């Protein structure tokens, strides 16, 4: 196995120490940090997302893989910054107004980071105005809205409406959370629905790829 393959495996299995060891070895082998991210970290987290979607692993395994990825990133990040490498896509994420739940939202944020998105996490109970302000400040390619309570689903409608009305028409909006369905997504005019944190990565990649062709923000 190459060093990058070993690093990838260490991350997908959540092996912290190995992740650090192989990340350091990859750096010592003079592999550019961006390549380490693209060819080891991203595929590792993609595999984790796939296995999560297939119910082969669950939240704990996903979290330990994310922790191993962070371990590797602590070594890579200063080098990425020094090399002037920044993620290609930016995403904003938050739980909608009135909803204080953030476990699911945090998982999606983690998986998006694993797919090499820059993620701005606005936290929970985020008002439509705060989403709009963040969209204007960060000019993201993607906005993720989360809701756990059925009673806060209507806040998603207001948020989608507010973001569209703010003139940020090119930004893609993905929604998710236990009570959310594809039908609801279509009803409120969001761009995509993801049933779980693994699918959220696929949906995000699909939407930004489509957006990159027709309308760069």
């Amino acid at each position, binding site marked *: 196995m190459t060093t990058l393959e070993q690093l990838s495996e260490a991350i997908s299995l959540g092996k912290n120490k190995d992740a650090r060891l192989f990340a350091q070895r990859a750096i010592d082998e003079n592999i550019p940090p961006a390549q380490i991210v693209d060819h080891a970290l991203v595929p590792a987290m993609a595999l984790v997302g796939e296995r999560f979607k297939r119910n082969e692993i669950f939240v704990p395994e996903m*979290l330990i893989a994310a922790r191993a990825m962070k371990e590797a990133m602590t070594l890579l990040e200063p080098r990425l910054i020094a090399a002037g490498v920044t993620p290609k896509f930016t995403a904003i994420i938050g739980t909608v107004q*009135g909803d204080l739940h953030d476990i699911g939202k945090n998982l999606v944020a983690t998986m998006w980071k694993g797919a090499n998105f820059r993620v701005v996490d606005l936290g929970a109970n985020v008002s439509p105005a705060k989403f709009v302000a963040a969209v204007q400040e960060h000019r993201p390619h993607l906005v993720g809205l989360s809701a756990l309570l*059925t009673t806060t689903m209507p806040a998603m409608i207001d948020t989608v409406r507010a973001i569209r009305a703010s003139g940020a028409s090119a930004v893609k909006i993905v929604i998710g959370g236990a*009570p959310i369905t594809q039908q609801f997504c279509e009803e409120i005019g969001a761009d995509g629905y993801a049933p779980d944190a693994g699918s959220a990565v696929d949906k995000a990649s699909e939407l930004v790829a489509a957006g990159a062709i027709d309308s760069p923000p």
Partner: protein
Amino acid sequence: MDTISLIEALVDRPLLCDGAMGTQLQARGLKPGQCGEEWNVTAAARVEDVHRRYVAAGCDLITTNTFGGTDVALARHGLAARGREFNEAGARVARLAAGPGRWVLGDVGPLGELLEPWGTISSATAGRAFRDQAAALLAGGADVILVETMSDPQEAAIAARGAREAGARLVIATFAFQAAGDGFRTMMGATARECVRAAMQGGASIVGANCGTNLSLADYVRLGRELVEAAEGHPVIVQPNAGAPRLVNGAAVYDESAVELASCVPKFLAAGVRVIGGCCGTTPEHLAAMAEAMRRHAAGDRG
């Protein structure tokens, strides 16, 4: 009421728990994001009204409005210091509405944050939070502690243990499952068997499922069967959602009708489930239809 008699009553007949609280409170003016537990103190009459509607529907078990009543959960509203007051008041109002012949279940929901090592909450912090909540619920008149909507068996065990330490003579523990492959798992990946074992080790005597993600009524029946098998003779409780919500005129609407839920009652009972109730989207109307189905079942009409 004497909690031993709940177990005894279950030997004689299946019992009906109540249905959703949050949506009922919102129908009475609770705003999204507002702390529902605070209403036990500031709008107790409205909470009592919900309980009374479930009593009138024929429910045997009345659940307090204290799902997010641990200090940890209340802290998200900046109300951690009010825990004892909200829980005691919640139990008192449920006790008042329940009247004689019914049991009050002191409701304990998840902390809403993951335990160490996945999250930041230590077992000691969790244990204290659950113990304090249970103590206040018991002081207010709860007969039983209901630990519900759990995903992490460890958290459920800590909650059940906390309730027992606070003096609860009977603890019910239920978990939120999702379909995973051929079977069911919680968000944390636990099987029905793992959940049941952990809950019992923590001191729960009745175990089961409530809520859940994207489960059909047929799924709940299958899950009930699995739980009965795993519980090895202990009573099992299942509280399904009323289907998946759809948006109608800006409000989430659940499609599963009272008739459909009631039609599942004989199936749950045939599967060996001894306590049936409702979770998200269920109303007093759903529960009244289920009560009628239980009466028909008891009268020998198994259709």
